[in-house]
């Protein structure tokens, strides 16, 4: 029986080792997440005793902190940061950064460490959570708030060199301190004031997608920068004789013979429908994937990347529509900003982030966010050529209203058809074009023309960013 005894005992010992490994996994790998989980009843208990950490802007300005140990929170930051920062309420739980960083703000990381345990044994409760420092710049945030002036929509401003978010807002908003008294109104309001449009809103991009389509086409080498397209004001996209669907340029204006650069500057739909066909369904799909469509978009609060049509069919008409940013293609403002960042930064798409560091109560940095790259979307040479076309769009195209004297701005406007009323006004771009330090994405819901509504807002924000930020 000797060998069978040995094998049976091995089987049982291996089973117990698996338990030990699982134990280590739960404690070490999942520990922080589980210990700070909002549904963990221990969190509420700790909350009553500790002073929850504060959230600060890049310049050190306080956004929110505890009025006294155990709460409630005292929100003193710009009103437009409400969605990002979120709220913490005894009844309605947490949202935004207050939710994602719940465990760190409560200092649960330390209470789980040996040093924390020693402190407890010696009678000294930690008493204070960690502070969080954001990348948001107060001046730029306020400029964005002013420029938007309460219009429904969203703004994302970020630094393409690092991915650091400099300003982010979503309208309409709410007051974090009054979440419990206003809950009924906030949740029944059809405009969705609690919804973070900047990170979670999915909009048809319309023409702002055209630089991306141009980049996909140039990467696939299906067109040349010198290629010329013929625009007669409209083009039939239907696949059979009696299918009369067509794509047209605004007011059916014929652009005549246009180059790729001209097609972007004048936002020629007919030319882009043809470019879409040249790219073809498969390469178009792959190109979108390279820009992160259909993937997850990692961020410090809940965020979503753009989505391709759900039924997954890419017929001739659908391809033409996708190429002009319609046809059930949707994208979030944050994802749009990340894609613009890729065009600005030679094809490298950076991961957007808004928390630069976490500081312990004694002031030492316990976690610092490092800039990271989500992926290489396109070649640097392609990015450079598309950038030049976007510069032309601002200099003498539809995005002229975004121009700033003395600064070379690259940009693209969009006027996106949608089933909810007048078109959404978009602007997406960056400056200065030669060495981009700021990406701005603006969307005004049902705002009408991107060139008339969104581009001027973006100009004001860019002006503030280029003047203010310590570049």
């Amino acid at each position, binding site marked *: 029986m000797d060998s069978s005894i040995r094998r049976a*005992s091995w089987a049982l010992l291996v089973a117990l080792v698996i338990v*030990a490994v699982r134990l280590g996994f739960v404690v070490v790998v999942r520990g922080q997440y*589980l210990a700070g989980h909002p549904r963990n*009843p221990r969190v509420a208990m700790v909350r009553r005793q500790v002073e929850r950490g504060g959230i600060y802007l890049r310049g050190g300005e306080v956004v929110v902190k505890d009025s006294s140990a155990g709460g409630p929170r005292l929100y003193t930051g710009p009103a437009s940061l409400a969605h990002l920062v979120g709220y913490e309420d005894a009844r309605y739980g947490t949202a935004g950064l207050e939710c994602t960083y719940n465990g760190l703000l409560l200092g649960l990381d330390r209470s789980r460490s040996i040093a924390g345990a020693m402190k407890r044994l010696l009678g000294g409760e930690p008493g204070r959570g960690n502070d969080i420092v954001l990348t948001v710049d107060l001046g730029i945030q306020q400029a964005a708030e002013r420029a938007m002036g309460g219009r429904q929509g969203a703004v994302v401003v970020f630094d393409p060199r690092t991915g650091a978010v400099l300003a982010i807002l979503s309208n309409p908003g709410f007051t974090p301190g009054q979440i419990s008294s206003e809950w009924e109104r906030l949740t029944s309001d059809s405009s969705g004031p609690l919804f973070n449009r900047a990170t979670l809103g999915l909009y048809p991009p319309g023409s702002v997608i055209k630089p991306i389509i141009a980049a996909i086409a140039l990467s696939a080498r299906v067109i040349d920068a010198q290629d010329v397209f013929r625009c007669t004001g409209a083009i039939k996209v239907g696949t059979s004789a009696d299918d009369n669907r067509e794509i047209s340029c605004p007011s059916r204006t014929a652009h005549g013979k246009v180059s790729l650069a001209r097609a972007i500057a004048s936002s020629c739909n007919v030319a882009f429908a043809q470019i879409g066909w040249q790219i073809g369904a498969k390469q178009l799909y792959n190109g979108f994937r390279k820009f992160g469509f259909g993937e997850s978009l990692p961020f410090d609060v809940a965020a979503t990347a753009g989505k391709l049509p759900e039924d997954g069919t890419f017929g001739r008409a659908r391809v033409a529509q996708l190429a002009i940013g319609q046809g059930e293609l949707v994208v979030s403002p944050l994802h749009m900003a990340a894609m613009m960042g890729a065009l600005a930064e030679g094809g490298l798409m950076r991961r957007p982030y808004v928390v630069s560091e976490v500081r312990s109560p004694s002031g030492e940095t316990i976690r610092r966010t490092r800039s990271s790259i989500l992926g290489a979307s396109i070649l640097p040479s392609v990015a450079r050529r598309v950038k030049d076309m976007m510069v032309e769009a601002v200099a003498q195209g539809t995005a002229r209203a975004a121009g700033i004297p003395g600064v070379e701005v690259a940009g693209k406007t969009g006027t996106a058809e949608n089933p909810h009323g007048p078109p959404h006004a978009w602007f997406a771009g960056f400056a200065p074009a030669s060495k981009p330090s700021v990406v701005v994405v603006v969307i005004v819901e049902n705002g009408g023309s991107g060139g008339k509504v969104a581009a001027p807002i973006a100009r004001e924000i860019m002006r503030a960013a280029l003047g203010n930020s310590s570049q």
Partner: protein
Amino acid sequence: MRRRVPGEGPSPADILLATALLPGMLAMLMATLASGSPARSPGWIVLAAFAMVFLTAHIVLGRGTRTGDPVLFSTVAFLSGLGLAEVLRLDPVLASRQLSHVGIGVAVACATLILSPDLGVLEKYKYVAAACSLVLLGVTILFGVEAGGARSWLDLGPVAIQPSEAAKILMVTFYAGYLKDTRVLLRKSSRRVLGILLPDPSYVGPLVLMWGISLVLLVFQKDLGAAVLFFGVFLLMLYVGSGRLSYVLGGAALLAVGGAACYKLFPHVRVRIDVWVSPWRFLDSEGYQVVQSLFAVADGGLIGRGPGLGMPGVIPAAPTDFIFAAICEEMGLLGALAVVAAYALIVYRGFWWASRLHDDFSALIAAGISSLIGLQAFTIMAGVLGLVPLTGVTLPFVSYGGSSMIASFAGVALVLRASRDLARERMPQVGQ
């Protein structure tokens, strides 16, 4: 080896036991100090009485000379100390009852070690053991009361007992006796059906029948955990006896078929499996227990909150099924790993003796009891950690519960008894 005289200093067995008792006693002390009113806490009495129980047993058993394997004995003492400390911290009233369970368990073990002349006596009664086991399970089906979803309790007025705990030990005894007689035949005789080696039905038949009957009983009781244990121990012992992996694989196939049937037939089994696959989806219903348990485990961190300083009270069924999660919270990863290591040691020592015992019956008992304890500990620890579907079995020597505690001590006493026989054979002078 000479006989030790009083005053000569502590023997290795003394030191081993003292070391094993210390962590539990320390934890009881901390839990008592951390309670609301340490001065009036029953913790002091529990602490003193716990130490007394094991020290008395140690002296009654000739300071280790008549205990059998001192490592095994000390490991069991370690586990019951930690368990008692955590029960004390959760509910002092339960702790005093648990103390009496430990006391009775140790007394049963001492009686077994002192009174039983030879394990071979048990072998003669293997069919009686099987019959007793079936009667216990049958009575539970007829007169059992339901608690925690399983109808596995007998209400005897002042106390309620769980007959399946005793049935497990009796069943291991039967398997050991039966396999001793038939193992050579099981190993040799075989017929080939569809290219698979099958044993002669006349030998393996009664075993499968036995297994089927116990499984039927347990399905009627809805005691999934016990059913899995009966089956798992049966397979392990069959493998040890026959050395044939094909039996285990065939058994595993049977288990898969049975499991699939149970999943289709019984809603309570289906719920367990669904919750195991995605506990977070059932956060507010059936998954609540496992998620709360994971919260507790994570909260303990590396060295735990300290006995009496965590919030294990929010874990459902903390003193019984989920005591391991409570231990994780208050004694941390290190404390929990010590518990896992203790079971590994019990398994290792049990099989170590099994491979050295000359008598097949004793060897099979040692292997069977260690399999039972090891498998049961695995089932509940892995269940609490969300690694396998949760089944309501106790953590041997640790969970609150009289039937389980006493049965576990009785079981380990058989291994200790078997190990002492070998010690006598090899070293006749020990204990003279």
